[in-house]
């Protein structure tokens, strides 16, 4: 609890770290989904006669 409290600066520290984690999650998941969709589409095109 003392750790989460951050000497009364908990709100600022965890908002900064939380939004950073969210931003990284959005970027990583977004780029992976995009790659997967494109790789699948390219693979299907190739299978088509």
């Amino acid at each position, binding site marked *: 609890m003392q750790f989460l409290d951050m000497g009364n*600066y908990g709100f600022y520290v965890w908002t900064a770290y939380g939004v950073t984690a969210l931003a990284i999650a959005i*970027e990583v998941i977004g780029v992976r989904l995009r790659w997967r969709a494109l790789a699948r589409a390219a693979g299907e095109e190739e299978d088509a006669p």
Partner: protein
Amino acid sequence: MNLYRYSAPAAFYPIAGVLAPWFALAAALCALVGLYVGFVVAPTDFQQGQAYRIIFIHVPTAWMSMFIWLVMAFWSVLALALNTRLSAMMAQALAPTGAWMTFIALWTGAFWGRPTWGTYWAWDARMTSELILLFLYFGVIALRNAIDDPRRADRACAVFTIVGAVNIPIIYFSVQWWNTLHQGASVSLTAAPSMAATMLVGMLVMALAAWLYTIAVVLVRVRTIILERERGAAWLDATLATRRV
């Protein structure tokens, strides 16, 4: 080994796929070590209390936000001078990550500034020029989306990126040129750092994590760009047919 071989998208696509997970793993390990040093080993700051722990993400992301634009400018020069497709693709792949880094630097700066300076935002020289950098990233992404022909978009974005690089020294030296709110650098190449050694180690390890993260994400994104732009190319069909990469 002929390294120029890898300047062709056909040769780079599989190697980027092999390298990306290793950079991602290294980034995650560095982030874990950096956060451990930053939150457990490093002491509380005598002036800023625990709020200073925000700098472990603020400073590395602010560095990356400037550095990524310079790397984009480097690839843009190559793209214009040598007319190489992959150089322009690298610049294109870096822009969204640069924008994210700039956003995180601004956001964490605001949440550090509020408890430390008493304000989330001020029209200070450093903050304003960093905000302009965010708009430049949006600008280069929008410019590419506005031009249908990818090769024309490459050239337009390359010129935009090289001209926009003028903002980087303005951000970097803003704390010396204008005496506004943001303090000067605590870490520089020419002077001893003005912080505890463990704080510095935590920050440098986090900076390394930011580098490795950027490389990992950009490698994956450059693969998506290659898939988009080389669609229908014989090499791509052959690569996708022979193995799952």
